[in-house]
């Protein structure tokens, strides 16, 4: 278990300790994953966090990277939702890493929404769990909140409205509930839905914490602003209700980057974000660039340091929201361009 996990997530940073853990983990994966050893061949021991080698996030779509070691007990494979390329990332999960990752998510989110257990309503379908040996990312995201839940209910059957009876039942048990969904699903299934009067009555007296992730792509046409999204969710809910948006990816399972009220994404002390120039891969300070994300949690595969296709900018440490440490703004994806050539029909 990473000793950094014992610290408050947004307290003072010890980047030297993180570097040591990242260097040790890089060494471990070089020995345990031959393709990773090949692609990092010739690179020395990282002397700075910027030197920690990364795996491009797309490589997990193109091949299965897996670290085999006596200490690693593999479980299921975490699968991202198919992208425009039609392929999914496949991330092997293992017992120890899963424990670390669950602890990490709880620590990070607790700082934003409190740690007290409460009923968790997931806008998804439980049948998503039954996918052979694979775990869809959106279910994994929901299950990562399980440790914060006193009770877990999946309330959105496929192609049907939210099961408002189940929502009402949860609200009858507790006046304080967590609701999780992908951003687009939460909008369509809850914010834009006609909520039955009896449920509305319960919601008005409840503290509802909406947690969402997955980005705004599905809300681009017609565009839905963050303010409109949050206002629609919070309309008619009780005092203390809130909406929390976090950024995370399958290839960095266990680390989420919640958006604070000062519009910044916060990085826990056991993770780091480096912004790189896409053309030179040199680190950039104060400028927009491609995001490299790292954390010392995963043993099952070398996804401890990944170069994403997301674009962002590091913000100065110290946030008006009161949290210390590293923070950044997510600006979107690297813009894609059309194929130019003749080799398709």
């Amino acid at each position, binding site marked *: 278990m990473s000793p950094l996990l014992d610290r408050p997530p947004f307290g003072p940073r010890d980047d030297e300790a993180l570097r040591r853990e990242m260097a040790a983990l890089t060494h471990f994966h070089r020995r345990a994953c031959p393709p990773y050893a090949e692609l990092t061949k010739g690179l020395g021991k990282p002397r700075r966090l910027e030197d920690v080698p990364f795996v491009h996030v797309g490589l997990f779509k*193109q091949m299965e990277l897996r670290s085999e070691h006596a200490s690693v007990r593999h479980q299921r494979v975490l699968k991202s939702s198919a992208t425009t390329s039609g392929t999914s990332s496949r991330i092997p999960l293992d017992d120890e890493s899963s424990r670390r990752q669950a602890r990490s998510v709880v620590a990070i989110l607790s700082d934003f929404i409190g740690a007290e257990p409460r009923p968790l309503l997931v806008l998804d379908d439980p049948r998503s769990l039954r996918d052979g040996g694979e775990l869809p990312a959106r279910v994994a995201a929901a299950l990562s909140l399980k440790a914060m839940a006193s009770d877990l209910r999946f309330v959105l059957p496929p192609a049907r409205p939210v099961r408002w009876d189940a929502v009402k039942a949860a609200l009858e048990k507790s006046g304080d509930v967590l609701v999780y969904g992908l951003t687009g699903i939460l909008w369509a299934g809850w914010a834009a839905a006609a909520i039955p009067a009896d449920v509305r009555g319960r919601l008005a007296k409840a503290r509802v914490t909406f947690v969402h992730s997955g980005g705004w792509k599905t809300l681009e046409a017609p565009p839905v602003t963050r303010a409109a999204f949050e206002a629609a969710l919070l309309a008619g809910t009780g005092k203390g209700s809130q909406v929390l948006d976090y950024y995370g990816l399958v290839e960095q399972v266990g680390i989420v980057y919640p958006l604070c009220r000062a519009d910044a994404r916060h990085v826990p002390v056991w993770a780091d974000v480096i912004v790189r120039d*896409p*053309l030179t891969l040199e680190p950039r300070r104060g400028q927009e660039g491609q995001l490299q994300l790292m954390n010392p949690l995963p043993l099952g595969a070398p996804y401890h340091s990944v170069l994403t296709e997301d674009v962002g900018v590091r913000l100065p440490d110290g946030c008006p929201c009161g949290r210390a440490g590293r923070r950044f703004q997510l600006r979107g994806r690297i813009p894609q361009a059309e194929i130019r050539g003749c*080799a398709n029909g």
Partner: protein
Amino acid sequence: MRTAERPRLHYFRNAAGVTAVALPFALDTLVKDWTRVQRAMVRERPAEFRRDEWAYLMSSLTRERLRAPFTEAFGEAMATLPKGAAVGALARPRGTIAVWLPASVSLLGPLVSAMLLMTGSRLRLKGSARATDLTSTFLDFVRGKAPRGSALARALRQNVAHEVFDRDDTRNAAWAAAADMRVLFGSEEAARGVERLPHPTGSIASYFVDRRSEAWLHPDELTDANLRDVIRAFAIRGQAACTSPSRLVLIGAKDRDAVAVRDRMVALWSSAAPGDPAPHAASANVLASQWARANGWRAALAPRNAAVLAAGRYDLPFKPAALMLPVVAAREAQALAGLPANAQTLGVASNPRRLRRWLEIAASSKALRIVPIREMHRFGSIWDGRRFWADAFQIVEVRA
């Protein structure tokens, strides 16, 4: 061709004799109009075109390039027909040519429209809604720059129609039914789809489907100039163009030579292909280089992540990535046997001493073109093994 107008006769002579070519315009006049447009292209470039694409188009519209297909098909132009000279045949525009363009951002539309316009046939060009339409942009530019009332302006107005629709549109069938010649650039599946459409008996078809090309160099040809030619040929479209080298094969070299050539190409890259890649392309190249290294290739990124050059064994599996060029060594027999089934162009060093060997290889291999590397993207009147441009004419036997 508008039959209402009296065709102009132009005469060409080759070893087979004199051919009269009937066109609905004076060839010299049309060529002059094109060169005026070309001059305007020097000053102005629509934003949809990249600089290298625009330069390539400009170089395709010189007087020499525009006249070359006539010379290749019919011989040297004759200013007049000498008294008493025998004419063996008359070539006349085939009629209506329907062209299905690829569903990618492609220069084929602009190139084909300019090239086929010179045949005097009526053109119907089908674009795709799935990609930025360079053909419309180019035709609008030419319409705007062609002198008012000129032969080119008239030819564009009367003989060129460009429409964008998808593969389920009823216009596909209507165009096939009315075309004297069907031309398609795209996949085998798309070609089969067009071929299945009812079409007139006696009409002809040219389908240009996905193909792969290679560049071959011998150890004595590994000069900086030749390696720069490979870089330029590859950099413009990478693996996305059938005329790009999909790999560089070092004939008669060793695997370790491939690594040395890779390093030389990395060093030469910026001088041969200046300019920055788009960020998404740079990122895709980082990904491709990692895939390659993880799978046994000795891959290196070109400066500013502009491409991936990967040295490896000839038979090492390769996953195509847009801007990744494998560099491999092979014996000639191995390279010949390893040409893909859909081989198109073999780019070679310009070396007249090897001409006979290239002829032997052309006679026995699947390659459809063997040309200097710097000419890999440059087509004359022969496309994919057929006299495509000449097919746009009907040949009429005429004896007095």
